[in-house]
């Protein structure tokens, strides 16, 4: 019984070895099936990317964006972020009118949503795996925030807090970026730019010096020039 088993095993092994020899000889023939030879585990030749940006996370946003290239040169990125946390970096909103200057402070910005739209022109890189680009980046953010109204200490010793004030943030940047693939399907990117942003706050209470009291201001808009520096991680699809 054992001999039969051994013979059967030997037969199976010899069949495998014969098959291997055949394959080896066949592998020497020129082959037009080049996909298997090009398969080095890296995803290439794709035009879709899911991108996670670092800069919005500092502002308390969590989200992702999707980018697709159309042809070799043009691409567009569309993303959505949700504000779940307070900003990690210090924020200050400066309110000014003709009478006085007062400071108000973001206390707890939350319940927000952000959108990012970024058309790009790729100067280098046929696929989305790696490339160098220049583009525009529009950021639209809307959120509720608590404000601390700073009243001069000679008038009142306690601070006043105004809750759930509607705020919006719009910006438009001219950006330069570069990204490259690492690992099998990941990308790392660096982007910087400059542009203009607009802060808009609805019905913010401020302390008015003339009336010596807290008054509700009209909607305020505030423009300023600003810069952008962002790191991103992407997943190739």
């Amino acid at each position, binding site marked *: 019984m054992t001999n039969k088993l051994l013979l059967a095993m030997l037969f199976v092994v010899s069949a495998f070895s014969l098959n291997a020899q055949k394959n080896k000889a066949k592998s020497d023939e020129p082959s*037009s099936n080049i996909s298997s030879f*090009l*398969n*080095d585990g890296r995803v290439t030749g794709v035009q879709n990317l899911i991108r996670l940006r670092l800069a919005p996370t500092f502002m308390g946003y969590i989200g992702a964006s999707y980018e697709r290239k159309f042809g070799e040169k043009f691409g567009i990125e569309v993303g959505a972020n949700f504000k779940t946390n307070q900003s990690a970096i210090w924020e200050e909103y400066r309110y000014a009118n003709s009478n006085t200057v007062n400071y108000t402070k973001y206390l707890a910005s939350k319940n927000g949503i952000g959108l990012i739209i970024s058309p790009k022109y790729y100067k*280098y890189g*046929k696929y989305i795996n790696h490339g160098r680009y220049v583009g525009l980046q529009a950021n639209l953010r809307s959120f509720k925030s608590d404000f601390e109204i700073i009243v001069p200490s000679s008038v009142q010793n306690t601070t006043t807090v105004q809750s759930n004030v509607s705020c919006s943030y719009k910006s438009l940047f001219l950006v330069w970026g570069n990204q490259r693939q690492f690992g099998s399907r990941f990308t790392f990117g*660096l982007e910087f730019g400059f542009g203009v942003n607009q802060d808009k706050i609805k019905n913010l209470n401020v302390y008015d010096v003339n009336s010596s009291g807290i008054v509700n201001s009209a909607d305020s808009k505030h423009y300023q020039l600003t810069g952008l520096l962002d790191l991103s991680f992407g997943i190739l699809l």
Partner: protein
Amino acid sequence: MKNLLLLFCALFITNVFSQKNNAIKELTGTEFRPEKKDRPYFYQNAIKIGENYYVIAQKGDKAYINFFGFSTKQKYDFKIFKLDAKMNVKSVATIPSEFEGKDVQTLKIGRFGDKLCALFYFNNKKARKQFLFAQMYDLKNFTPSGKPYKIGETMITKKETRISSIFKVSITDDFSKMLITADRSNIIRSRREKKAAAEQKNHTFSYWLIDSEFKLINVGKNVKMGKGTTEIIDQTFDNEGNMCILGFEQATTTKKSRYVFGDIDSDEDGNNSKLIMKIIRPSGEASDITFANGEYFYSAMMKLNPNTGNVAVVGLLGSGKYGAKGLFTQQVNIKTAEVLAENKSLFGIDLVKEINSLKPPTVKSSKSNTKKEKRANKDKKESKKVKKTEVPDYLHMYVRLGSCHYNDSNELVVVGQKYYTYTVTYTTTDSKGRTTTHTVTYYVYGDIISFKINQDGEIENFGFIFHHVETTAYVYKDYTSLYTGDKLYILTKSSGGQMFLNNKASTLQLFKEYNTIARRNSYADFMNVSDNEMIHISSRKNKVIFSLISVKLEK
């Protein structure tokens, strides 16, 4: 009337003067300004099909760090300039280095069958293999013809993900067959391979012989050739598919960790190297031949004589004093593997003295003659002093064998060049007293010397051309040679002409185009098209001028 006579005289004189160097005909096209994306970095080769010439160039392999800190690799695309018979650029085509979204690296492009064949290689990190691919292209519109084929594969180690090609590719004269060899001795080898070489174990290589329909004619994987540190230095094959591989086997008696063939610093006494040859027939039957045992060569090469089927192996015998002491020749029949007579021709003191006594030809002028006579007298005195001390029997710095040709009488004409390098360390100090140093290696390409070797393997006569070019970029040789109608022609990047094998120094004619652009910062290159035609390229940053340099064949 007098003026007319003078004009005729002047025309006659110029005509006579121009006939002095009428061996070379130069035809220059109009200046071409390629677009930025079409500006190549390396001109690779040129082919002629019908009345059109195709100059093949590569976009480049430059890698640079951009301001983001990322290294960006430029595409390795092929650029093809289509020229008409008058050397005017008719179109520029791009053959992209991409298969299925993967960037592959370009290797070579040339005529194979009746189409263009572009070769690409790809280092597969996962499979740890380097694959060689071939893609045929239509000559009319440079569109791919058929599918790309994998035609060769060889092992790479984990560290070797960015190595250059391991493959050597040759195509027969009738463009019907392609021989691919893979030899790992030119790259940094794995620990296992180094250990095997140190233990004098068998050296192996792989080969594939295919036809223009991508059908495999012959294949050999891990074929044994030589022992220890062996390097394949040349390969040739006839139209029937008989292959001949020439290798150099270095015994590991030297203490050097890595020996390089043609190492000019090598000591002759401690050298036990030899040339090895493997002849493989289409049936797979192979013959191993070993010769020149114990000899040391600065360089060696082989040439197939299609008339006799003999392969001539020519080697420059090293003297151990940085100079060649003679020529080694060996004829082997590629079909029968029959080894014909081995010959070793030493230059000897007299021939070396004759060559060293050659002086560049000078223009006669009464004023300078007296000075030159004085100089000549001084030289004579100095040479007398040298004679007392040492008379060399080797050609100093003559270390590079460039080409060899057969003539109609089956005699060999061997062309070589003096070559050496030197390094200069530059130190600069700024206003704050900080010093920075950088070292530059200069490659010096010197005099070109050729020898005619008769059927008995003896040196009959020699030709000599004074030449001196220094560059910071390495090339194997900075000239090309054509042998046709029993005449030898030498073409450098700036000049060309016949090299007379009359034991005297010959002069070359400066190209007209070189005169016009030499003052500006330009780049010149040349490529052989056929036995008697060469395309010369002069290029600046945004301008390219193609010239056809052809040898006037006598009927």
